[in-house]
């Protein structure tokens, strides 16, 4: 019989998507990087989101998810390459 180690779950107050983004420097920087990345995408795949309007972790997560999806869908094609193709 294997030794069983109990792992406690976080308390009910642990979840807080409204945590101010300015307190999460990692994600704050990541939002700026994603904004830079999406400016390389074809116009129709850009989100048009003003990242200064992103104030919370939950909003940042939503934005990163949208850009990640757009990056995947772009298949690595940048705006410049698309224009050349036209």
């Amino acid at each position, binding site marked *: 019989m*294997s*030794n069983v180690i109990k792992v406690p*779950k*976080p308390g009910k107050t642990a979840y807080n998507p409204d945590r101010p983004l300015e307190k*999460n420097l*990692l994600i704050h920087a990541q939002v700026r990087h994603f904004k830079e990345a999406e400016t390389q995408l074809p116009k129709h795949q850009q989100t048009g989101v003003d990242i200064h309007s992103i104030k919370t972790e939950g909003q940042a997560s939503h934005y990163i998810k949208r850009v990640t999806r757009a990056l995947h869908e772009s298949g690595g094609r940048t705006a410049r390459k698309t224009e050349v193709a036209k």
Partner: protein
Amino acid sequence: MEPNYTDHEDAGGEQIACDQHPDHDVQQGELFVAQVYNAIRQNPDLWKSTAILLVYDEHGGIYDLPPPARKTGVKATPDQTGVPGLTFEFDRLGVRVPAVLISPWIPKATVVPGPGEPGGRTFEHASIPRTVTKFFLDDYPEATRRERMADTFMDLLSDTMRPDNDCPVFDF
């Protein structure tokens, strides 16, 4: 595997960040580790062929008891820093970070002594690609000088697999 870095709503409901950065809940990170461990531990084929390396990119805080170690022989030249005019030589390690190697092939209660202790060794993040390439390719000429100088985790794995009932499982 990368942890989740934000608290957010997803199709699966409330997702709590498990990255253990402040001020996220540290227990969610421990739960994440336990879930990954259990998924591998409870699959006999994976368990006997997998080594889990739990490692951090940062130490937490700004102080460490021993000073960061030097890495002689790996000085970067100015053109290798990627920043014009930067002369920092990247010849020292940072402060220590925790690392836990998990496998049934590691003898029970193994603790690798650190620098300054008898038989002490220094691992670094370059030990990760060094170990992987050593295990899968043995000789890897494309390895950087930094990688070639890094110690590997290979010798921590023995030829004897610990019995199933000697390896714990997590309950959550």
